[in-house]
């Protein structure tokens, strides 16, 4: 592989963010002169969601997500902000790496989709097989790529071989070397319209999908399942299922409470932009709901660690977790109805 060096020592304005995809996209927009907070990008891209697919197993555990499909935030955000993105996937890893080098050589920072397991700069305990991680490359020095991974406080370096492995990781959500960068953008994007569109999509996806596993109905479905776990499987398996939910909510970079706090921050900004005090109230409501999600995580962790009582009381403990989830579901339904009414 020919090592194309960047002409000047590359610099990139790194900003610490909570979530990889919205953080990376916000960073690229900022680099091209459009200054929006991560929360705004998340909201305009309709990032908030809930999904529970018990029949899709990832390493034996059901698929749970507190946000929409990977790449959806970027796709919607770009459309609504009048941004033209070039997005390319590669079959051949060598070609994919060459394309990256060429972009870096002309000083173009590039967003990439990667598999976390193969990124050596991640804390060891956080390296699991997950292929939806977004990170920006902004330069190359010798054999190392210079990366702005927004979930880290500072820029990081990654050896070429590891980055190639991460970009061409296989399995669910395989990145297939995805690269993306800004080709052009509208000079005066209509932020009000973008915010309204973002809100509308999220309201509709949280409330109106006629499948009982998505949106508010998905939270209710999870609540039902949580109550049954201790009756249907071994104590250990039930604890692993519960831990999986907590990890999706807190560990993978959600800004806390499974993106609910970040979305509350967006609602606050949206309220000011659209001049709708009702959205500020919705933000306060969602903050309170986020606190309940955190309480769910705290009680769940106590149950996993085993200081919530003896094995005989486990079904009761799972039941009370289930009650918290039901409460989150019905309160989120209220919030999104209120948002819908305010638009």
């Amino acid at each position, binding site marked *: 592989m020919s090592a194309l060096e960047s002409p000047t020592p590359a610099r990139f304005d790194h900003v*610490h*963010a*909570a979530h990889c995809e919205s953080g990376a996209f916000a960073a690229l927009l900022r680099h091209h002169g459009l200054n929006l907070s*991560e*929360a705004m990008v998340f909201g305009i891209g309709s990032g908030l969601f809930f999904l529970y697919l018990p029949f899709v197993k990832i*390493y034996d555990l059901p698929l749970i997500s507190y946000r929409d499909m990977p790449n959806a935030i970027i796709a919607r955000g770009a459309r609504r902000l009048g941004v033209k993105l070039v997005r390319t996937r590669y079959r051949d890893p060598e070609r994919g790496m060459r394309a990256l080098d060429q972009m870096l050589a002309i000083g173009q920072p590039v967003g990439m989709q990667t598999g976390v*397991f*193969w990124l*050596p700069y991640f*804390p*060891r*305990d*956080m*390296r*699991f*097989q997950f292929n939806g991680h977004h990170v920006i490359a902004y330069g190359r020095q010798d054999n190392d790529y210079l990366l702005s991974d927004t*979930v*880290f*406080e500072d820029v990081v370096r990654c050896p070429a*071989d590891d980055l190639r*492995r991460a970009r061409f*990781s*296989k*399995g669910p959500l*395989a990145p297939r070397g995805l690269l993306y960068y800004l080709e052009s953008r509208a000079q005066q994007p209509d932020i009000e319209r973008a915010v309204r569109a973002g809100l509308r999509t999220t309201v509709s996806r949280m409330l109106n999908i006629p499948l009982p596993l998505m949106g508010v109905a998905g939270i209710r479905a999870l609540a039902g399942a949580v109550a049954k776990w201790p009756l249907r499987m071994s104590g250990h398996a039930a*604890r*692993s299922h*519960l*831990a*999986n939910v*907590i*990890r999706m909510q*807190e*560990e993978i*970079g959600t*800004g*806390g*409470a499974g993106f609910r*706090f*970040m979305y*509350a*921050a967006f609602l*606050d900004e949206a309220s000011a932009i659209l001049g709708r005090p009702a959205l500020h109230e919705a933000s*306060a409501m969602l*903050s309170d709901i*986020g*606190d309940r999600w*955190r309480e769910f*995580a*705290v009680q*769940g*962790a106590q149950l*996993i*660690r085993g200081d919530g009582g003896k094995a005989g009381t486990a079904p009761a403990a799972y039941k009370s977790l289930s009650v918290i989830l039901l409460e989150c579901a019905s309160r989120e339904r209220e919030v999104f109805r209120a948002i819908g009414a305010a638009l």
Partner: protein
Amino acid sequence: MKVHQVPQDDSILEGHSRACYAQDGNGQYLITKSRGWQVEAIANRQALSDVEEKIAQAARDVGEGRASPLAFHMACFHMNAGLLAAHTGIWSLRIRRHLRPSVFARLPDRLLQRYANAFGIALSSLKRGPNSGQEAP
């Protein structure tokens, strides 16, 4: 969550910190740094203990001749036959056969190299399995 409630526990972040959204005294949202949260550490430990148990089980199976070294490496890289099939292009039924020590022992280096490449380890480590000192990266 208020800024003063953002947890600063010893956790899994190895000295890094993550960005959390929390409200200041006026209810304004800010991005605040968190060194980690005990709750996430407990959930993470539960998940890792499952992985570690699979690795330990695979090591025992290899040691006692019930499974080939491939089973051990697969566990180390958090993979099952389906995921390894996606990484190597080898059918998962065939991979399952390669988990049998007698079948694995007869495999040509050319095929073994495909496994080694997928894991990013040396062919010799792939053949040695748990005794190679080879851990997940």
